[in-house]
């Protein structure tokens, strides 16, 4: 049964990208465990506004785990203690009465803090712009089954396409590496015939952009895979290495 709990929150507050941040401690009383984590933050913000204080800034949008906007590093885990779920899918029944919850923003050189818990994840969009697309001639819609694709490839491409680009991979990585994201975005296209035409150019361009933006070098710790809310597999990273090395060797 869900019950009402009292919790202590340690929240990272930072006025701007260049300002020095610090933790602030807040007490919340009688939070029902059926409340979602973000709703709990809404309650806290309402409390802060009523006290005449600045509310905590955090990213959120769809609140159903598909948009990739929410972030938050909760008690040492990106997207909190739940597995295969985003922060917005996290509920207070994961926490106990009297518990102290530490909430931090993604910490990675590639994701500078904008304010409080909100970080700038535009770097991922830049990587996508570098090559995460297919160029197709417009015209009539092709027949659904005109291009045969094996079930195995279709499944792997679909699994890779589940990536919502939230940035938890780089946030979880001790090397600040974005390889899980880039590999998922390369794989979802490289596996399909429509994406094969530009596969070599795509792998080279996206890795070059990733390196340019200051993300780290992958050392295969698999922390990204374990923390990914969409369970993207590191076998995509092996595929990206393969695509990239083959593309460079062909040059």
């Amino acid at each position: 049964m869900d019950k009402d709990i009292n919790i202590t929150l340690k929240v990272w507050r930072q006025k701007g990208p260049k300002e020095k941040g610090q933790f602030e401690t807040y007490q919340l009383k009688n939070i029902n465990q059926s409340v979602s984590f973000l709703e709990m933050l809404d309650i806290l913000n309402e409390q802060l506004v009523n006290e005449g204080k600045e509310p905590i800034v955090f990213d959120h949008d769809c609140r159903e785990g598909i948009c990739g906007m929410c972030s938050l590093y909760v008690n040492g885990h990106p997207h909190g203690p739940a597995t295969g779920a985003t922060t917005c899918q996290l509920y207070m029944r994961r926490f106990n009465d009297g518990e102290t919850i530490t909430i931090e923003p993604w910490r990675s050189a590639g994701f500078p803090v904008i304010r409080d818990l909100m970080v700038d994840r535009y770097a991922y969009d830049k990587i996508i712009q570098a090559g995460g697309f297919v160029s197709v001639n417009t015209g009539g819609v092709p027949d659904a089954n005109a291009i045969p694709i094996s079930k195995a490839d279709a499944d792997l491409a679909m699994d890779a396409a589940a990536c919502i680009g939230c940035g938890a991979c780089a946030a979880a990585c001790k090397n600040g590496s974005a390889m899980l994201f880039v590999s998922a975005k390369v794989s979802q296209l490289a596996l399909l015939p429509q994406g094969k035409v530009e596969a070599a150019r795509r792998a080279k361009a996206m890795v070059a952009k990733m390196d340019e933006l200051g993300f780290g070098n992958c050392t295969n710790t698999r922390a990204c895979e374990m923390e990914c809310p969409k369970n993207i597999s590191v076998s995509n990273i092996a595929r990206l290495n393969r695509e990239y090395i083959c593309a460079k060797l062909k040059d």
Partner: protein
Amino acid sequence: MWLLNSSIGKKLIMSISGLFLILFLVFHVSMNVVAVFSGAAYDMVCGFLGSNWYAVAGTLVLAAGFIIHIIYAFILTMENRKARGNDRYAVSARPKGVEWASQNMLVLGIIVILFAILHFSQFWYKMMFAELMGNHEVMLGGAAVSPQSGSAFIDYYFKGNIVITVLYLVWYAALWFHLTHGFWSAIHTLGWNNTVWMSRWECISKIFATVICAVFAIITIIFYLNGVGGGCSATCVH
């Protein structure tokens, strides 16, 4: 040059130099097995690997492999720390499924290399290096021996010497952790992996690391107890 500039290129250098060092370990452990059965045969191997040009050339290639692997370990670690940003997480937990070794490869590597320096000072410096310096005899605990007499070195350092034996066993333990991650990670960086092979490579890594380190450890313990040729008694020619 993509091999030197790109993140995947740098990782590839790390991977190939690592696999090269793994091959060397296989060679080294096979050489040690010889010494368990026959001191004379082991001295033959040492003679063959003395200051002959091919042995010196091989040593230079091996040294290059070591140096590249170490330099890139530091380059990659420094770049990765920079990529992590200035602020560190106040609370961080190692997620389930992440091996401890995988996050501590640099520390494990430093431990391995420190013991390797001890090992080089005990053997290589007094064997190949002494010979290259033109010495045909080296002093070992008051007795003059040929730098090609590997069996005399083993007996001198290991037989009945518990401190050196334990130090070597600690070395193998660090090496075991380093290899359990390093082996499959190198294969993964080469791109030779998928969802099916992932767990297989991890398993092969563990088996490989265990076999290599266990054989090294067993041989070291035999040397401690019985010295060179201690693996057999009456049937072998010592």
